[in-house]
């Protein structure tokens, strides 16, 4: 009778799913995607101005191939289905390896059956070797007949920490993707409070402390800052005049101007145009001097001009302009519900990887065999070098 060994497909699938090779191959796939992004400029998704700039640069660089490359998703690799599928598979692998690793951690508490071929070790004195192994942080189990040496608990725990860290990081990225949002290029002036559209969150730049304050739960980071001012105008009778930023805007008695470049205001009642031009003085900051020019309209003739620094007044014919210093900041606001899981995941990942480097997984068995000592398993090089035939 011929003994037939039947292969269990579920067991094979499980072994494949928890294999180091599969996880390594998936990591290489993710790495390949990230490396491609080094050579191919990725399209910005949030800022339309940045997108337009990117598109013109890409067309200049890749010419007619740009549209084909865009259709293939090469300019949005980290947002592509393939990349997300790879990350999902990595997460699946990490879950399975976590389950398998947890089981192994529990099973490894006790001595295991020796595995592998026994090899004779030369010049090895068992009590001396055991003492040396214990001194080097190995756990030793067994008795005089058979010893097991391994690095339990840390060698088994460190990969688990790394896998759970990686998983938490991926969960954090998923939460950010599903429920998070990012707003770039928000310009806020001192004393102004902005409510972010559709979110109910607010950001303000405190006029006295010049500190950005915001509602809880969002992260705000500054992109740039510069001069700005509140501008108002009164006529010779002390009557407040309306100011317009654009032709369509309603005249208002006071207007906030962020001096990101030259800015213009109109005072229809006084038939004047005001030009505000920040003067180059090294870095643009809140104390940058501002050139104020008053034009009569019509005919567009320069009536008067002056340099204002940190607020002040300017008199023109029958007109008094008042400037109150109100520097602006350009901000990015992010709401990321996966922030804390991601931070916890990163900490666990780093601790786990460092632990796995310091305490690599290793298990071997030693026993007396006649006059000498034999060993099996993952023998350390120090014992391996003394190995005989």
């Amino acid at each position: 009778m011929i003994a037939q060994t039947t292969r269990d497909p579920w067991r094979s699938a499980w072994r494949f799913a928890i294999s180091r090779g599969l996880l390594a191959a998936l990591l290489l796939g993710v790495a390949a995607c990230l490396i491609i992004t080094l050579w191919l400029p990725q399209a910005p998704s949030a800022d339309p101005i940045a997108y337009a700039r990117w598109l013109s640069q890409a067309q200049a660089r890749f010419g007619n191939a740009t549209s084909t490359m865009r259709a293939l998703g090469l300019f949005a690799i980290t947002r592509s289905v393939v990349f997300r599928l790879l990350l999902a598979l990595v997460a699946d692998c990490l879950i399975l390896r976590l389950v398998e690793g947890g089981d192994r951690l529990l099973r490894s508490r006790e001595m295991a059956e020796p595995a592998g071929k026994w090899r004779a070790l030369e010049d090895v004195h068992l009590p001396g070797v055991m003492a040396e192994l214990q001194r080097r942080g190995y756990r030793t189990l067994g008795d005089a007949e058979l010893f097991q040496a391994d690095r339990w608990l840390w060698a088994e725990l460190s990969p688990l920490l790394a896998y759970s860290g990686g998983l938490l990081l991926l969960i954090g990225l998923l939460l950010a993707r599903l429920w998070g949002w990012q707003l770039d290029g928000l310009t806020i002036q001192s004393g102004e409070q902005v409510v972010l559209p559709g979110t109910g969150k607010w950001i303000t730049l405190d006029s006295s402390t010049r500190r950005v304050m915001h509602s809880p739960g969002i992260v705000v980071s500054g992109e740039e800052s510069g001069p700005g001012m509140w501008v108002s105008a009164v006529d010779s009778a002390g009557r407040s005049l309306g100011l317009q930023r654009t032709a369509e805007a309603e005249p208002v008695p006071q207007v906030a101007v962020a001096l990101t470049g030259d800015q213009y205001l109109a005072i229809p009642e006084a038939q004047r145009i005001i030009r505000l031009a920040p003067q180059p003085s090294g870095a643009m900051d809140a104390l940058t001097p501002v050139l104020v020019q008053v034009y009569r309209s019509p005919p567009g003739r320069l009536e008067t001009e002056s340099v204002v620094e940190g607020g002040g007044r300017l008199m023109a014919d029958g007109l008094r302009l008042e400037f109150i210093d109100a520097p602006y900041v350009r901000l990015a606001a992010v709401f990321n519900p996966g922030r804390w899981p991601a931070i916890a995941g990163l900490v666990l990942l780093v601790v786990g990887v460092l632990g796995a480097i310091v305490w690599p997984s290793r298990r071997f068995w030693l026993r007396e065999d006649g006059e000498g000592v034999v060993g099996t398993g993952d023998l350390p090089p120090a014992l391996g070098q003394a190995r005989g035939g």
Partner: protein
Amino acid sequence: MSAVVIFTGFACGTLLTATGLVLWSGYRRVAGLTDAIRVLRWLAGGLLLIVAALAGYGDRALVTPLMCLALIAALAAPPEIRRGSRDCQGSPISIVPALLVAGLALFSAALRPAGFAWAGTGDRASAWVGLAMAVCGGLGARALSAALGDVVNPSACAGAAAPGKGEGPGARGVAGVTYAALTVLMGVTAVLNLWQRGTVWVGARGEGGLAGAWLIWSAAWLGLGRSPRARAGLSALAALLLVVVVVAVGC
């Protein structure tokens, strides 16, 4: 001609001489040649360290491009320290990464003697990250040397390139330290990004490259295939990517 250019030139010459001696030792066994090569490589490392100190001294920025290049070459130049193995000098190819980066430093010193600040200057934290990147790049160049030596001759210094394998300081040493340093750098940078900007990725130059290098190294650590040559090849690829990204972004 500035002292920086002279010292960098000397370091390049010393590394070239060491490469020549390693090549020569392949044809003829001469007593004391191994020691001479070792001394020359340490000397080049010392000279490049002086260049890094001179390039960074007095500069407002924490890391200047020349300092970054010199630091990478200085970390890559010295021979491997392996317990119980004095003959493991590797092949001439193991000196090539240090020689290439030192050559780049020489060009940089000659063409841009004044240097300019690190790309992400202005923020103290990013300047420290820049310095950590330069150190990681240096360790990467060193790991690249070891990995190339293993790829060319896997039996001579087996196990040096694959982190987590083996027991001795040589086996875990260079690759393990580089992988650990890269892990810490990636982790700290990502946590800083999350803390300050709210996202893991902030679109900084080289971000994807560093993550890619870390992932390739992790794949090597997981032991894709049992072949030491395949593991060393992956480690060499990761180390090469790390060095290229650091040089392109920071130097």
